[in-house]
């Protein structure tokens, strides 16, 4: 567009990316339903209002936990998510039985979450861009990274590289999954290597860190992205706050390891409210996706007919 025309059209445009907002809470005519209370503002909320706002308190902006599938659905273009690698399930290679047997923990996690492990990955479109998207679910053994999580993340990067897709990961984690011992620790190297290969192929990777993100996941693929966002209130670090406190033998400063303090310390690009996330990530992809990789058939893979 000739720049002079554009100047004329510019009137009223916003200079920064704005959110989509969320619907007004329904305060009157309360239908039957579930009520929950907000830990931040102590308000009593109608579950329907919370859900309509992507599980964000409509009064104070507190971000409630979201399950992985809901996170992904809220982020990508509607109806485009197609799970991959769902058939992978955790083994118990070390027969880890110190404390609660690992097999028991896995079984319970599968039952309560309906997931096969802590990471959910798949193809999708985001703002029309072909991506591989993934999310970790804290309910599944603390979203710890064992062989299955590592493999799913590495495959996500590999698939994106093969099909010239971007990668967007919604990360939460307690760290490496100790019940798989060194097999878990090595997933840090594996996923980091995979992220490095994606970068080497000139494809973008955006990560979004949600509450909490710690340990071996922070110290590997989670922060190897081109742009790092975090959700408001997310706690993010390598060592957990209790360990740090024991190490330094004094109490921690206010806001330590909070998303907001990580922006100040130069570690992440911005804290992005959930309701603005889709727009923001999609805008980043507008800049970073190679022109030839984006197209109308963003959601369809190039290998076979699988979506």
């Amino acid at each position, binding site marked *: *567009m000739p*720049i002079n025309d554009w100047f004329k059209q510019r009137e009223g445009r916003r*200079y920064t990316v704005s959110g989509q907002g969320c619907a007004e809470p329904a305060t009157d005519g309360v239908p039957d339903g579930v009520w929950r209370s907000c830990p931040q503002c102590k308000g009593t909320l109608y579950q329907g209002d919370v859900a309509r706002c992507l599980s964000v308190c409509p009064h104070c902006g507190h971000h409630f936990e979201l399950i992985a599938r809901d996170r992904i659905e809220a982020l990508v273009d509607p109806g485009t998510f197609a799970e991959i690698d769902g058939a992978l399930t955790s083994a118990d290679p070390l027969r880890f039985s110190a404390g609660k047997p690992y097999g028991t923990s896995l079984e319970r996690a599968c039952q309560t979450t309906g997931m096969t492990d802590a990471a959910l990955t798949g193809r999708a479109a985001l703002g029309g861009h072909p991506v591989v998207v993934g999310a970790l679910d804290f309910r599944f053994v603390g979203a710890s990274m064992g062989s299955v999580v590592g493999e799913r993340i590495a495959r996500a990067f590999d698939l994106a590289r093969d099909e010239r897709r971007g990668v967007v990961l919604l990360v939460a984690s307690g760290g490496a999954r100790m019940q798989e011992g060194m097999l878990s620790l090595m997933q840090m190297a594996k996923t980091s290597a995979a992220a490095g290969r994606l970068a080497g192929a000139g494809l973008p990777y955006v990560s979004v860190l949600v509450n909490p993100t710690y340990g071996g996941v922070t110290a590997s693929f989670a922060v190897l992205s081109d742009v790092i966002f975090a959700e408001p209130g997310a706690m993010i670090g390598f060592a957990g706050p209790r360990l740090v406190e024991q190490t330094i033998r004094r109490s921690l400063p206010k806001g330590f390891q909070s998303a907001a303090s990580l*922006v100040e*310390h*130069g570690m992440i*690009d911005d804290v992005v409210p959930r309701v603005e996330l889709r727009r923001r990530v999609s805008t980043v992809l507008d*800049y970073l996706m190679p022109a030839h990789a984006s197209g109308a058939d963003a959601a369809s893979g190039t290998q076979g007919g699988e979506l």
Partner: protein
Amino acid sequence: MARFVMEFERPLAELEEKLIALKALDIATTPELAAEIADLEREVERLRVTLYSALSPWEKVQVSRHPERPKTDDYVRGLFDDVVELRGDRAHADDQSMFTALATLAGRRVMVIGHNKGHSTKENVARNFGSPHPEGFRKAERAMRLAGRFGLPVVTFLDTAGASPGLEDEERGQAWAIARCLETLAGLPVPVVVAGIGEGGSGGALAIGFGDRMLMLEHSYYSVISPEMCAVILHKDAARAPESAAALSLTAADLLRLGIIDEVVPEPLGGAHREPDTVIAEVGLRIAAALDALAGDDRADLVERRYQRLRAIGVYNEAG
């Protein structure tokens, strides 16, 4: 808010005040007032033209530092859409004196990197008055590398008195951070367009201050050393800065003549702060034109040409 008055504007400001006072009198009781006001108005207009149409280098330095002069974020707000600010050096801090963002100029997707002075004292404190710390340069380097990897042209805005000269800036490697910016910028496989919009102070400006097309506002400056510090070194007297400013060849016109920049963007009478929207739009036009002119170039050619351009800067004799 009263307009900030620069030293050399004082005679004009006094006349303007007098004019305002006259206009406040009751014209009915003093019929000769009308003529007096008309005279003074002509006088003010003549002085304004005289003062501003031939600013000395030192006066231009003052205009370039005018607190109401448009800042990098005014250009960003005025010119760019879909701005995604990128923050942090991933090692120490987010330095707000250096602004980096993905941004779109009339459909042209670029990486914006600019020194960022504040509009208020509070903002200026947060932004260290536009003087980057090492982490600011490391943030800029990160933005450059990202732009290079994803093929985004880089647009930089220069507006700094210089790199921050604090104790901790030295301890965290100010020189190292600037040097890495220089090396990275030189080798960037994307077009680089530089706009000098205010102060261009020494190495802190240069770190993001050279490229394939360089433009400067008429009253901005770009200098190897501040006129004041130069005067202290030469005469042990900062008050002799006007002499130094003249000696340093630091105005946009000087630098166009020396072949260091490519174009001078005219400012309205009195300086960019008198008509900021006009100036911002004009700078936007020039940047867009430069981006369009560079858009088709082969990337290796671009880097080689940028190197040859740098190699050609310098004046010396070569005997025999």
